Protein backbone atom coordinates (compact mmCIF):
# COMPACT_ATOMS: atom_id res chain seq x y z
CA UNK A 1 0.00 0.00 0.00
CA UNK A 2 1.24 3.46 -0.85
CA UNK A 3 2.09 5.74 2.05
CA UNK A 4 -0.30 8.61 1.32
CA UNK A 5 1.29 10.73 4.05
CA UNK A 6 4.79 10.09 2.73
CA UNK A 7 3.78 10.95 -0.83
CA UNK A 8 2.07 14.12 0.29
CA UNK A 9 5.13 15.15 2.30
CA UNK A 10 7.41 14.44 -0.69
CA UNK A 11 5.07 16.32 -3.01
CA UNK A 12 5.00 19.46 -0.88
CA UNK A 13 8.34 18.94 0.86
CA UNK A 14 9.17 22.63 0.90
CA UNK A 15 6.09 23.43 2.93
CA UNK A 16 6.80 20.57 5.34
CA UNK A 17 10.51 21.28 5.69
CA UNK A 18 10.08 25.00 6.32
CA UNK A 19 7.23 24.36 8.73
CA UNK A 20 9.37 21.69 10.39
CA UNK A 21 12.28 24.12 10.69
CA UNK A 22 10.03 26.68 12.35
CA UNK A 23 8.70 24.08 14.72
CA UNK A 24 12.24 22.74 15.21
CA UNK A 25 13.55 26.10 16.34
CA UNK A 26 10.78 26.18 18.93
CA UNK A 27 11.70 22.66 20.04
CA UNK A 28 15.35 23.74 20.08
CA UNK A 29 14.47 26.55 22.49
CA UNK A 30 12.56 24.06 24.65
CA UNK A 31 15.51 21.64 24.73
CA UNK A 32 17.85 24.52 25.51
CA UNK A 33 15.67 25.62 28.42
CA UNK A 34 15.92 22.10 29.81
CA UNK A 35 19.69 22.29 29.16
CA UNK A 36 19.91 25.58 31.07
CA UNK A 37 18.29 23.91 34.09
CA UNK A 38 20.57 20.87 33.78
CA UNK A 39 23.52 23.24 33.48
CA UNK A 40 22.52 24.98 36.70
CA UNK A 41 22.25 21.66 38.52
CA UNK A 42 25.56 20.53 37.04
CA UNK A 43 27.22 23.81 38.05
CA UNK A 44 25.95 23.27 41.60
CA UNK A 45 27.28 19.72 41.65
CA UNK A 46 30.57 20.84 40.10
CA UNK A 47 30.90 23.43 42.87
CA UNK A 48 30.54 20.70 45.48
CA UNK A 49 32.76 18.22 43.63
CA UNK A 50 35.47 20.79 43.07
CA UNK A 51 35.53 21.84 46.70
CA UNK A 52 37.01 18.42 47.52
CA UNK A 53 35.07 18.30 50.80
CA UNK A 54 33.02 15.62 52.50
CA UNK A 55 31.59 18.02 55.08
CA UNK A 56 30.88 21.76 55.15
CA UNK A 57 31.17 23.35 58.59
CA UNK A 58 29.35 26.68 58.75
CA UNK A 59 28.00 29.25 61.18
CA UNK A 60 25.38 27.80 63.49
CA UNK A 61 21.81 27.78 62.11
CA UNK A 62 22.74 29.04 58.67
CA UNK A 63 22.57 27.43 55.24
CA UNK A 64 26.06 28.76 54.39
CA UNK A 65 28.35 29.21 52.70
CA UNK A 66 26.60 29.16 49.28
CA UNK A 67 22.94 29.78 50.09
CA UNK A 68 23.32 32.12 53.11
CA UNK A 69 26.06 34.28 54.66
CA UNK A 70 28.11 32.37 57.19
CA UNK A 71 31.08 33.39 59.26
CA UNK A 72 33.09 31.48 61.80
CA UNK A 73 36.44 32.09 63.37
CA UNK A 74 39.38 31.15 61.22
CA UNK A 75 40.88 29.02 63.98
CA UNK A 76 37.82 26.76 64.19
CA UNK A 77 39.49 24.31 61.85
CA UNK A 78 42.15 23.48 64.42
CA UNK A 79 39.60 22.07 66.83
CA UNK A 80 37.82 20.22 64.04
CA UNK A 81 41.09 18.57 62.98
CA UNK A 82 41.36 16.94 66.39
CA UNK A 83 38.05 15.08 66.08
CA UNK A 84 37.94 11.40 65.28
CA UNK A 85 37.47 10.65 61.58
CA UNK A 86 38.66 14.04 60.30
CA UNK A 87 41.55 13.77 57.86
CA UNK A 88 41.86 17.33 56.59
CA UNK A 89 40.17 20.66 57.32
CA UNK A 90 40.68 23.95 55.52
CA UNK A 91 39.30 27.45 55.84
CA UNK A 92 37.52 28.92 52.87
CA UNK A 93 35.91 32.21 51.93
CA UNK A 94 33.61 32.99 49.04
CA UNK A 95 32.95 36.43 47.65
CA UNK A 96 31.06 37.09 44.42
CA UNK A 97 32.17 40.34 42.83
CA UNK A 98 33.34 42.07 39.68
CA UNK A 99 37.00 41.36 39.00
CA UNK A 100 38.73 43.72 36.63
CA UNK A 101 42.04 43.52 34.85
CA UNK A 102 44.86 45.85 35.88
CA UNK A 103 44.83 49.15 33.94
CA UNK A 104 47.72 48.31 31.66
CA UNK A 105 46.37 44.86 30.72
CA UNK A 106 45.16 43.98 27.23
CA UNK A 107 41.99 42.43 28.58
CA UNK A 108 39.59 45.32 28.79
CA UNK A 109 36.50 43.72 30.28
CA UNK A 110 35.83 43.06 33.92
CA UNK A 111 34.17 39.78 34.79
CA UNK A 112 31.64 38.59 37.34
CA UNK A 113 33.46 35.97 39.37
CA UNK A 114 33.33 34.03 42.59
CA UNK A 115 36.53 34.91 44.43
CA UNK A 116 37.58 32.01 46.61
CA UNK A 117 40.00 32.51 49.43
CA UNK A 118 42.00 29.40 50.21
CA UNK A 119 45.25 28.85 52.06
CA UNK A 120 48.23 28.00 49.87
CA UNK A 121 48.23 24.25 49.42
CA UNK A 122 48.56 21.33 47.13
CA UNK A 123 46.33 19.70 44.67
CA UNK A 124 43.75 17.41 46.25
CA UNK A 125 43.46 19.30 49.51
CA UNK A 126 39.97 20.61 50.36
CA UNK A 127 39.30 24.00 48.82
CA UNK A 128 42.22 23.84 46.41
CA UNK A 129 41.45 24.44 42.74
CA UNK A 130 40.89 21.22 40.80
CA UNK A 131 41.37 20.65 37.10
CA UNK A 132 44.46 22.82 36.82
CA UNK A 133 45.21 22.91 33.11
CA UNK A 134 48.10 25.40 33.08
CA UNK A 135 50.47 27.01 35.55
CA UNK A 136 50.57 26.10 39.23
CA UNK A 137 48.71 26.36 42.53
CA UNK A 138 48.96 29.35 44.84
CA UNK A 139 52.15 29.01 46.86
CA UNK A 140 52.38 32.44 48.51
CA UNK A 141 50.14 34.14 51.06
CA UNK A 142 49.61 37.25 48.92
CA UNK A 143 48.95 38.52 45.41
CA UNK A 144 48.72 35.28 43.46
CA UNK A 145 45.60 34.03 41.74
CA UNK A 146 44.37 30.96 39.93
CA UNK A 147 41.60 31.81 37.45
CA UNK A 148 39.10 29.71 35.55
CA UNK A 149 39.32 29.78 31.77
CA UNK A 150 35.76 31.10 31.58
CA UNK A 151 36.93 34.34 33.24
CA UNK A 152 38.89 35.14 30.10
CA UNK A 153 42.11 35.77 32.00
CA UNK A 154 45.38 34.17 30.95
CA UNK A 155 48.56 33.12 32.70
CA UNK A 156 50.59 36.15 33.69
CA UNK A 157 47.63 38.53 33.55
CA UNK A 158 47.30 40.94 36.42
CA UNK A 159 43.88 41.40 37.93
CA UNK A 160 42.49 43.79 40.53
CA UNK A 161 40.44 42.64 43.51
CA UNK A 162 39.51 45.53 45.73
CA UNK A 163 42.72 47.56 46.15
CA UNK A 164 45.22 44.81 45.41
CA UNK A 165 46.65 43.44 42.20
CA UNK A 166 47.13 39.71 41.70
CA UNK A 167 49.13 37.83 39.10
CA UNK A 168 47.41 34.83 37.51
CA UNK A 169 49.70 31.86 38.11
CA UNK A 170 47.35 29.03 37.21
CA UNK A 171 44.33 28.28 35.05
CA UNK A 172 41.48 25.87 35.72
CA UNK A 173 38.56 24.47 33.75
CA UNK A 174 34.92 24.05 34.87
CA UNK A 175 35.50 25.67 38.27
CA UNK A 176 32.29 27.66 38.59
CA UNK A 177 29.86 28.87 41.24
CA UNK A 178 26.31 27.54 41.48
CA UNK A 179 25.33 30.56 39.40
CA UNK A 180 27.80 29.61 36.69
CA UNK A 181 30.26 32.42 37.43
CA UNK A 182 33.93 31.45 37.00
CA UNK A 183 36.00 31.04 40.15
CA UNK A 184 39.14 33.00 40.90
CA UNK A 185 41.23 31.62 43.74
CA UNK A 186 43.35 33.98 45.83
CA UNK A 187 45.27 33.44 49.11
CA UNK A 188 42.99 33.16 52.17
CA UNK A 189 44.52 36.14 54.01
CA UNK A 190 43.94 38.44 51.06
CA UNK A 191 40.38 37.14 50.67
CA UNK A 192 39.62 37.74 54.36
CA UNK A 193 40.90 41.27 54.01
CA UNK A 194 38.97 41.82 50.78
CA UNK A 195 35.71 40.68 52.34
CA UNK A 196 35.58 43.45 54.92
CA UNK A 197 37.91 46.03 53.42
CA UNK A 198 36.79 49.61 54.04
CA UNK A 199 37.92 52.68 52.15
CA UNK A 200 40.59 54.92 53.73
CA UNK A 201 38.12 57.61 54.78
CA UNK A 202 35.96 55.05 56.57
CA UNK A 203 39.03 53.65 58.38
CA UNK A 204 40.07 57.12 59.50
CA UNK A 205 36.55 57.90 60.73
CA UNK A 206 36.36 54.60 62.61
CA UNK A 207 39.73 55.26 64.29
CA UNK A 208 38.62 58.75 65.26
CA UNK A 209 35.38 57.39 66.74
CA UNK A 210 37.30 54.79 68.70
CA UNK A 211 39.74 57.43 69.97
CA UNK A 212 36.83 59.61 71.09
CA UNK A 213 35.46 56.81 73.26
CA UNK A 214 36.87 57.49 76.78
CA UNK A 215 36.63 53.85 77.80
CA UNK A 216 38.88 52.77 74.91
CA UNK A 217 41.21 55.79 74.71
CA UNK A 218 43.59 54.64 77.39
CA UNK A 219 47.27 53.88 77.05
CA UNK A 220 47.83 50.41 75.63
CA UNK A 221 44.13 49.77 74.98
CA UNK A 222 43.53 52.09 72.03
CA UNK A 223 46.29 50.59 69.89
CA UNK A 224 45.07 47.07 70.62
CA UNK A 225 41.45 47.94 69.77
CA UNK A 226 42.43 49.67 66.50
CA UNK A 227 44.63 46.71 65.56
CA UNK A 228 41.77 44.29 66.19
CA UNK A 229 39.48 46.43 64.01
CA UNK A 230 41.84 46.28 61.06
CA UNK A 231 41.92 42.49 60.72
CA UNK A 232 39.18 40.01 59.78
CA UNK A 233 39.43 36.79 61.77
CA UNK A 234 36.44 35.18 60.04
CA UNK A 235 36.06 32.71 57.23
CA UNK A 236 32.83 31.52 55.59
CA UNK A 237 33.26 27.83 56.13
CA UNK A 238 35.62 25.04 56.99
CA UNK A 239 35.85 22.29 54.42
CA UNK A 240 36.43 18.87 55.96
CA UNK A 241 37.65 15.70 54.40
CA UNK A 242 37.07 12.59 56.46
CA UNK A 243 39.25 9.55 56.75
CA UNK A 244 38.38 6.52 54.61
CA UNK A 245 35.96 4.15 56.32
CA UNK A 246 34.34 6.78 58.52
CA UNK A 247 30.68 7.62 58.26
CA UNK A 248 30.26 11.28 57.20
CA UNK A 249 27.04 11.60 59.20
CA UNK A 250 28.72 10.42 62.42
CA UNK A 251 31.67 12.76 61.96
CA UNK A 252 29.26 15.61 61.22
CA UNK A 253 27.30 14.81 64.37
CA UNK A 254 30.49 14.87 66.39
CA UNK A 255 31.40 18.35 65.04
CA UNK A 256 27.86 19.63 65.72
CA UNK A 257 28.00 18.33 69.27
CA UNK A 258 31.47 19.46 70.29
CA UNK A 259 32.01 22.58 68.25
CA UNK A 260 28.45 23.96 68.31
CA UNK A 261 28.55 24.59 64.60
CA UNK A 262 26.26 23.58 61.75
CA UNK A 263 27.60 20.82 59.53
CA UNK A 264 26.31 19.62 56.19
CA UNK A 265 27.13 16.41 54.41
CA UNK A 266 27.46 16.20 50.65
CA UNK A 267 23.85 15.03 50.23
CA UNK A 268 22.51 17.80 52.47
CA UNK A 269 24.57 20.44 50.70
CA UNK A 270 23.38 19.21 47.30
CA UNK A 271 19.83 19.46 48.58
CA UNK A 272 20.44 23.04 49.74
CA UNK A 273 21.89 24.04 46.40
CA UNK A 274 19.34 22.32 44.19
CA UNK A 275 16.17 22.44 46.28
CA UNK A 276 16.72 25.91 47.75
CA UNK A 277 19.30 27.98 45.90
CA UNK A 278 18.16 27.21 42.35
CA UNK A 279 14.59 26.15 43.17
CA UNK A 280 13.00 29.38 42.00
CA UNK A 281 15.04 29.36 38.82
CA UNK A 282 14.07 25.77 38.12
CA UNK A 283 10.38 26.58 38.67
CA UNK A 284 10.80 29.52 36.33
CA UNK A 285 12.32 27.25 33.70
CA UNK A 286 9.63 24.66 34.34
CA UNK A 287 6.98 27.29 33.58
CA UNK A 288 8.79 28.19 30.39
CA UNK A 289 8.88 24.52 29.40
CA UNK A 290 5.15 24.13 30.02
CA UNK A 291 4.35 27.29 28.03
CA UNK A 292 6.66 26.25 25.19
CA UNK A 293 5.06 22.78 25.12
CA UNK A 294 1.58 24.35 24.91
CA UNK A 295 2.70 26.79 22.21
CA UNK A 296 4.34 23.92 20.26
CA UNK A 297 1.15 21.85 20.53
CA UNK A 298 -0.96 24.78 19.38
CA UNK A 299 1.35 25.44 16.43
CA UNK A 300 1.43 21.76 15.37
CA UNK A 301 -2.36 21.56 15.70
CA UNK A 302 -2.80 24.72 13.66
CA UNK A 303 -0.36 23.61 10.96
CA UNK A 304 -1.82 20.12 10.64
CA UNK A 305 -5.36 21.51 10.68
CA UNK A 306 -4.50 24.02 7.96
CA UNK A 307 -2.74 21.39 5.85
CA UNK A 308 -5.76 19.08 6.20
CA UNK A 309 -8.24 21.83 5.35
CA UNK A 310 -6.20 22.48 2.22
CA UNK A 311 -6.86 18.90 1.14
CA UNK A 312 -10.61 18.75 1.74
CA UNK A 313 -11.37 18.03 -1.91
CA UNK A 314 -8.77 15.25 -2.06
CA UNK A 315 -10.10 13.78 1.18
CA UNK A 316 -13.65 13.87 -0.22
CA UNK A 317 -12.45 12.09 -3.37
CA UNK A 318 -10.55 9.53 -1.30
CA UNK A 319 -13.66 8.86 0.77
CA UNK A 320 -15.83 8.67 -2.32
CA UNK A 321 -13.61 6.10 -4.02
CA UNK A 322 -13.75 3.94 -0.94
CA UNK A 323 -10.85 4.92 1.27
CA UNK A 324 -11.60 3.96 4.83
CA UNK A 325 -11.64 6.57 7.59
CA UNK A 326 -8.82 4.64 9.23
CA UNK A 327 -6.58 5.22 6.20
CA UNK A 328 -7.38 8.94 6.10
CA UNK A 329 -6.82 9.31 9.86
CA UNK A 330 -3.55 7.42 9.48
CA UNK A 331 -2.43 9.78 6.73
CA UNK A 332 -3.04 12.87 8.90
CA UNK A 333 -1.49 11.23 11.96
CA UNK A 334 1.61 10.20 10.01
CA UNK A 335 1.98 13.71 8.65
CA UNK A 336 1.74 15.16 12.15
CA UNK A 337 4.35 12.70 13.39
CA UNK A 338 6.49 13.43 10.31
CA UNK A 339 6.33 17.11 11.11
CA UNK A 340 7.25 16.32 14.72
CA UNK A 341 10.24 14.23 13.57
CA UNK A 342 11.52 16.99 11.29
CA UNK A 343 10.97 19.48 14.11
CA UNK A 344 12.75 17.32 16.67
CA UNK A 345 15.79 16.72 14.45
CA UNK A 346 16.04 20.44 13.64
CA UNK A 347 15.49 21.31 17.31
CA UNK A 348 18.14 18.88 18.58
CA UNK A 349 20.71 20.03 16.01
CA UNK A 350 19.94 23.71 16.72
CA UNK A 351 20.20 23.24 20.48
CA UNK A 352 23.51 21.37 20.08
CA UNK A 353 24.89 24.10 17.84
CA UNK A 354 23.88 27.10 19.90
CA UNK A 355 24.37 25.66 23.41
CA UNK A 356 28.13 26.47 23.54
CA UNK A 357 27.43 30.11 22.64
CA UNK A 358 25.36 30.64 25.80
CA UNK A 359 27.20 32.59 28.50
CA UNK A 360 26.27 30.00 31.14
CA UNK A 361 26.70 26.27 30.92
CA UNK A 362 23.94 24.49 28.95
CA UNK A 363 23.96 20.75 29.54
CA UNK A 364 21.99 18.82 26.92
CA UNK A 365 21.36 15.37 28.37
CA UNK A 366 20.38 12.33 26.33
CA UNK A 367 17.56 11.62 28.78
CA UNK A 368 16.07 15.07 28.25
CA UNK A 369 16.34 14.63 24.48
CA UNK A 370 14.60 11.22 24.74
CA UNK A 371 11.85 12.68 26.94
CA UNK A 372 11.58 15.64 24.56
CA UNK A 373 11.21 13.25 21.63
CA UNK A 374 8.40 11.35 23.35
CA UNK A 375 6.73 14.66 24.30
CA UNK A 376 6.96 15.94 20.71
CA UNK A 377 5.40 12.76 19.34
CA UNK A 378 2.62 12.81 21.97
CA UNK A 379 1.97 16.50 21.26
CA UNK A 380 1.83 15.80 17.51
CA UNK A 381 -0.58 12.91 18.01
CA UNK A 382 -2.83 15.04 20.22
CA UNK A 383 -2.54 18.01 17.88
CA UNK A 384 -3.64 15.89 14.90
CA UNK A 385 -6.93 14.95 16.59
CA UNK A 386 -8.52 18.25 15.59
CA UNK A 387 -7.54 17.77 11.95
CA UNK A 388 -8.63 14.11 11.97
CA UNK A 389 -12.04 15.10 13.34
CA UNK A 390 -12.39 17.68 10.58
CA UNK A 391 -11.33 15.17 7.92
CA UNK A 392 -13.75 12.53 9.15
CA UNK A 393 -16.58 15.05 8.92
CA UNK A 394 -15.88 15.65 5.22
CA UNK A 395 -18.82 14.50 3.13
CA UNK A 396 -17.76 12.36 0.15
CA UNK A 397 -20.56 14.12 -1.74
CA UNK A 398 -18.34 17.23 -1.78
CA UNK A 399 -16.34 15.49 -4.49
CA UNK A 400 -19.31 15.51 -6.86
CA UNK A 401 -20.84 18.78 -5.81
CA UNK A 402 -19.00 20.66 -8.56
Amino acid at each position, binding site marked *: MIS*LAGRDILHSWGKFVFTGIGLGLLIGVTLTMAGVYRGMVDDAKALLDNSGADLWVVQQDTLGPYAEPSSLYDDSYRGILTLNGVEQAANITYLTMQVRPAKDQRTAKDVRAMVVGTPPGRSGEPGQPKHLIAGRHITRNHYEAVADLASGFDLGDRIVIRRNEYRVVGLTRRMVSSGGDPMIFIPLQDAQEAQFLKDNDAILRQRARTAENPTLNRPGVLDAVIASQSVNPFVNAVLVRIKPGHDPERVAESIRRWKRLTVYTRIQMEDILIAKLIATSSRQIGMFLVILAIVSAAIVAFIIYTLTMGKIREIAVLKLIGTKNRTISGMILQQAIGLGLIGFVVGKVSATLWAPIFPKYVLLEFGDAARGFVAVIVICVLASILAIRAALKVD*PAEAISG
Partner: protein
Amino acid sequence: MDRYNQGIRIEGLKKRYGTGDTAVDALKGVDMQVAPGEVIGLIGPSGSGKSTLLKCLGAIIDPSAGRMTLGEQIIYEDAWKIPDLCALRRDKIGFVFQAPYLIPFLDVTDNVALLPMLAGRSNRESRQRAMALLEALDVAHRAKAMPSQLSGGEQQRVAIARALVNRPPIILADEPTAPLDSERALTVIHLLEEMAAQFSTAIIVVTHDEKIIPTFKRIYSIRDGRTHEEQIKTHP
Protein backbone atom coordinates in the same frame (compact mmCIF):
# COMPACT_ATOMS: atom_id res chain seq x y z
CA MET B 1 -34.57 -7.97 -20.94
CA ASP B 2 -32.30 -10.65 -19.56
CA ARG B 3 -29.20 -8.61 -20.09
CA TYR B 4 -30.58 -5.94 -17.73
CA ASN B 5 -30.64 -8.53 -14.98
CA GLN B 6 -26.84 -8.44 -15.05
CA GLY B 7 -26.64 -4.62 -14.87
CA ILE B 8 -28.17 -2.16 -12.43
CA ARG B 9 -31.88 -1.92 -11.83
CA ILE B 10 -33.59 0.79 -9.84
CA GLU B 11 -37.22 0.47 -8.87
CA GLY B 12 -39.36 3.06 -7.13
CA LEU B 13 -36.38 4.85 -5.59
CA LYS B 14 -37.43 7.71 -3.34
CA LYS B 15 -35.50 10.29 -1.40
CA ARG B 16 -37.03 12.71 1.06
CA TYR B 17 -35.04 15.48 2.73
CA GLY B 18 -36.28 16.69 6.10
CA THR B 19 -39.44 15.74 7.93
CA GLY B 20 -42.94 17.08 8.54
CA ASP B 21 -44.09 20.23 6.83
CA THR B 22 -40.61 21.13 5.63
CA ALA B 23 -39.96 17.76 3.97
CA VAL B 24 -38.90 17.87 0.33
CA ASP B 25 -39.28 14.87 -1.96
CA ALA B 26 -36.25 15.04 -4.24
CA LEU B 27 -36.91 11.63 -5.80
CA LYS B 28 -40.51 10.48 -6.05
CA GLY B 29 -40.07 7.02 -7.49
CA VAL B 30 -37.22 6.59 -9.93
CA ASP B 31 -37.18 3.55 -12.20
CA MET B 32 -34.26 2.85 -14.48
CA GLN B 33 -32.08 0.03 -15.65
CA VAL B 34 -28.73 -0.11 -17.37
CA ALA B 35 -27.25 -3.22 -18.93
CA PRO B 36 -23.59 -4.23 -18.71
CA GLY B 37 -21.61 -2.56 -21.49
CA GLU B 38 -24.27 0.12 -21.96
CA VAL B 39 -23.73 3.88 -21.70
CA ILE B 40 -26.86 5.87 -20.95
CA GLY B 41 -27.43 9.58 -20.49
CA LEU B 42 -29.24 11.12 -17.53
CA ILE B 43 -30.49 14.61 -18.23
CA GLY B 44 -32.71 17.09 -16.53
CA PRO B 45 -32.94 20.70 -15.45
CA SER B 46 -31.23 22.02 -12.34
CA GLY B 47 -33.00 20.90 -9.18
CA SER B 48 -34.69 17.99 -10.93
CA GLY B 49 -32.97 15.45 -8.69
CA LYS B 50 -30.02 14.35 -10.85
CA SER B 51 -27.42 14.90 -8.16
CA THR B 52 -29.60 13.27 -5.53
CA LEU B 53 -30.06 10.22 -7.74
CA LEU B 54 -26.32 10.06 -8.39
CA LYS B 55 -25.58 10.27 -4.65
CA CYS B 56 -28.11 7.51 -3.93
CA LEU B 57 -26.65 5.31 -6.66
CA GLY B 58 -23.15 6.04 -5.37
CA ALA B 59 -24.09 5.03 -1.82
CA ILE B 60 -23.17 8.50 -0.65
CA ILE B 61 -26.58 9.28 0.82
CA ASP B 62 -29.32 6.94 1.97
CA PRO B 63 -32.45 6.70 -0.18
CA SER B 64 -35.78 6.81 1.68
CA ALA B 65 -37.38 3.86 -0.09
CA GLY B 66 -37.20 1.70 -3.18
CA ARG B 67 -34.93 -0.99 -4.47
CA MET B 68 -31.53 -1.11 -6.18
CA THR B 69 -30.15 -4.29 -7.63
CA LEU B 70 -26.65 -4.80 -8.93
CA GLY B 71 -26.56 -7.95 -11.04
CA GLU B 72 -28.20 -10.60 -8.91
CA GLN B 73 -27.50 -8.78 -5.67
CA ILE B 74 -30.00 -6.49 -4.02
CA ILE B 75 -27.93 -3.69 -2.56
CA TYR B 76 -30.81 -1.56 -1.30
CA GLU B 77 -34.36 -2.41 -0.40
CA ASP B 78 -35.72 0.19 2.01
CA ALA B 79 -32.35 -0.13 3.69
CA TRP B 80 -28.81 -0.89 2.61
CA LYS B 81 -28.28 -4.62 2.29
CA ILE B 82 -24.52 -4.29 2.24
CA PRO B 83 -22.95 -3.34 5.58
CA ASP B 84 -19.73 -1.82 4.23
CA LEU B 85 -20.73 1.02 1.90
CA CYS B 86 -17.09 2.08 1.70
CA ALA B 87 -16.21 -1.27 0.13
CA LEU B 88 -19.29 -1.05 -2.11
CA ARG B 89 -18.09 2.28 -3.51
CA ARG B 90 -14.55 0.99 -3.85
CA ASP B 91 -15.29 -2.37 -5.52
CA LYS B 92 -18.64 -2.00 -7.30
CA ILE B 93 -18.90 1.65 -8.35
CA GLY B 94 -16.54 3.82 -10.38
CA PHE B 95 -16.78 7.59 -10.34
CA VAL B 96 -15.86 10.10 -13.01
CA PHE B 97 -16.37 13.73 -12.12
CA GLN B 98 -16.75 17.01 -13.94
CA ALA B 99 -13.16 17.81 -12.96
CA PRO B 100 -10.73 14.88 -12.81
CA TYR B 101 -9.96 15.40 -9.08
CA LEU B 102 -6.83 13.33 -9.24
CA ILE B 103 -4.83 13.09 -6.02
CA PRO B 104 -2.19 15.79 -6.62
CA PHE B 105 0.56 14.11 -4.60
CA LEU B 106 0.38 10.76 -6.42
CA ASP B 107 1.77 10.19 -9.91
CA VAL B 108 -0.50 8.94 -12.68
CA THR B 109 0.17 5.24 -12.06
CA ASP B 110 -0.45 5.48 -8.35
CA ASN B 111 -3.58 7.59 -8.81
CA VAL B 112 -5.00 4.64 -10.71
CA ALA B 113 -3.34 1.87 -8.68
CA LEU B 114 -4.55 3.32 -5.37
CA LEU B 115 -8.00 1.73 -5.65
CA PRO B 116 -6.87 -1.88 -6.07
CA MET B 117 -4.35 -1.26 -3.30
CA LEU B 118 -7.17 -0.04 -1.03
CA ALA B 119 -9.04 -3.21 -1.96
CA GLY B 120 -6.13 -5.25 -0.64
CA ARG B 121 -4.34 -6.14 -3.86
CA SER B 122 -0.58 -6.15 -3.94
CA ASN B 123 1.30 -3.08 -5.15
CA ARG B 124 2.70 -5.05 -8.08
CA GLU B 125 -0.65 -6.36 -9.26
CA SER B 126 -2.30 -2.98 -8.71
CA ARG B 127 0.31 -1.19 -10.79
CA GLN B 128 0.08 -3.82 -13.53
CA ARG B 129 -3.68 -3.28 -13.70
CA ALA B 130 -3.18 0.46 -13.74
CA MET B 131 -0.61 0.29 -16.54
CA ALA B 132 -2.85 -1.93 -18.65
CA LEU B 133 -5.65 0.62 -18.41
CA LEU B 134 -3.36 3.57 -19.02
CA GLU B 135 -2.17 1.83 -22.18
CA ALA B 136 -5.76 1.17 -23.25
CA LEU B 137 -6.56 4.85 -22.69
CA ASP B 138 -3.38 5.98 -24.46
CA VAL B 139 -1.82 7.77 -21.49
CA ALA B 140 0.77 5.16 -20.53
CA HIS B 141 3.56 7.48 -21.68
CA ARG B 142 2.59 9.85 -18.83
CA ALA B 143 2.60 7.08 -16.22
CA LYS B 144 5.25 8.76 -14.03
CA ALA B 145 3.96 12.29 -14.47
CA MET B 146 2.22 14.17 -11.69
CA PRO B 147 -1.39 15.29 -12.34
CA SER B 148 -0.32 18.95 -12.52
CA GLN B 149 1.89 18.07 -15.51
CA LEU B 150 -1.00 16.65 -17.56
CA SER B 151 -3.35 18.37 -19.97
CA GLY B 152 -7.08 18.47 -19.16
CA GLY B 153 -7.81 15.64 -21.59
CA GLU B 154 -5.03 13.48 -20.18
CA GLN B 155 -6.28 14.08 -16.66
CA GLN B 156 -9.80 13.01 -17.64
CA ARG B 157 -8.41 9.81 -19.21
CA VAL B 158 -6.54 9.03 -16.03
CA ALA B 159 -9.75 9.67 -14.07
CA ILE B 160 -11.55 7.19 -16.33
CA ALA B 161 -8.77 4.65 -15.79
CA ARG B 162 -9.17 5.13 -12.04
CA ALA B 163 -12.92 4.56 -12.31
CA LEU B 164 -12.35 1.33 -14.23
CA VAL B 165 -9.39 -0.16 -12.43
CA ASN B 166 -11.35 -2.24 -9.94
CA ARG B 167 -13.57 -3.43 -12.82
CA PRO B 168 -16.77 -2.18 -11.21
CA PRO B 169 -20.11 -3.24 -12.75
CA ILE B 170 -21.24 0.41 -12.79
CA ILE B 171 -19.64 3.78 -13.39
CA LEU B 172 -21.29 7.05 -12.45
CA ALA B 173 -20.04 9.94 -14.54
CA ASP B 174 -21.06 13.41 -13.35
CA GLU B 175 -20.81 15.93 -16.20
CA PRO B 176 -17.53 14.40 -17.42
CA THR B 177 -17.39 16.59 -20.54
CA ALA B 178 -18.42 19.93 -19.06
CA PRO B 179 -15.01 21.60 -19.23
CA LEU B 180 -14.10 20.16 -22.66
CA ASP B 181 -14.66 21.43 -26.19
CA SER B 182 -16.94 19.48 -28.56
CA GLU B 183 -14.20 17.36 -30.09
CA ARG B 184 -12.70 16.33 -26.77
CA ALA B 185 -16.14 15.84 -25.25
CA LEU B 186 -17.06 13.39 -27.98
CA THR B 187 -13.70 11.66 -27.59
CA VAL B 188 -14.40 11.15 -23.88
CA ILE B 189 -17.88 9.72 -24.60
CA HIS B 190 -16.49 7.37 -27.24
CA LEU B 191 -13.81 6.35 -24.79
CA LEU B 192 -16.46 5.58 -22.17
CA GLU B 193 -18.41 3.55 -24.72
CA GLU B 194 -15.29 1.60 -25.63
CA MET B 195 -14.47 0.93 -22.02
CA ALA B 196 -18.06 -0.04 -21.24
CA ALA B 197 -17.99 -2.57 -24.06
CA GLN B 198 -14.52 -3.85 -23.18
CA PHE B 199 -15.16 -4.29 -19.45
CA SER B 200 -18.93 -4.92 -19.55
CA THR B 201 -19.52 -1.95 -17.34
CA ALA B 202 -22.80 -0.08 -17.10
CA ILE B 203 -22.14 3.66 -17.35
CA ILE B 204 -24.55 6.40 -16.33
CA VAL B 205 -23.54 9.82 -17.62
CA VAL B 206 -25.20 12.82 -16.02
CA THR B 207 -24.98 15.70 -18.48
CA HIS B 208 -26.32 19.03 -19.63
CA ASP B 209 -24.09 18.92 -22.66
CA GLU B 210 -26.25 19.22 -25.78
CA LYS B 211 -23.42 18.15 -28.08
CA ILE B 212 -23.02 14.72 -26.52
CA ILE B 213 -26.68 13.91 -25.86
CA PRO B 214 -27.21 12.56 -29.42
CA THR B 215 -24.41 10.01 -28.87
CA PHE B 216 -26.38 8.03 -26.28
CA LYS B 217 -28.50 5.07 -27.35
CA ARG B 218 -30.83 5.60 -24.42
CA ILE B 219 -31.50 8.63 -22.33
CA TYR B 220 -33.31 9.00 -19.07
CA SER B 221 -34.77 12.37 -18.37
CA ILE B 222 -35.49 13.28 -14.79
CA ARG B 223 -38.19 15.81 -14.06
CA ASP B 224 -39.83 16.60 -10.80
CA GLY B 225 -38.16 13.64 -9.10
CA ARG B 226 -39.25 11.03 -11.63
CA THR B 227 -37.40 9.47 -14.56
CA HIS B 228 -38.74 9.12 -18.07
CA GLU B 229 -37.07 7.04 -20.71
CA GLU B 230 -37.19 9.74 -23.33
CA GLN B 231 -35.39 8.69 -26.36
CA ILE B 232 -34.00 5.59 -27.90
CA LYS B 233 -31.51 6.32 -30.56
CA THR B 234 -30.63 3.74 -33.15
CA HIS B 235 -27.00 3.85 -34.08
CA PRO B 236 -26.15 3.02 -37.67
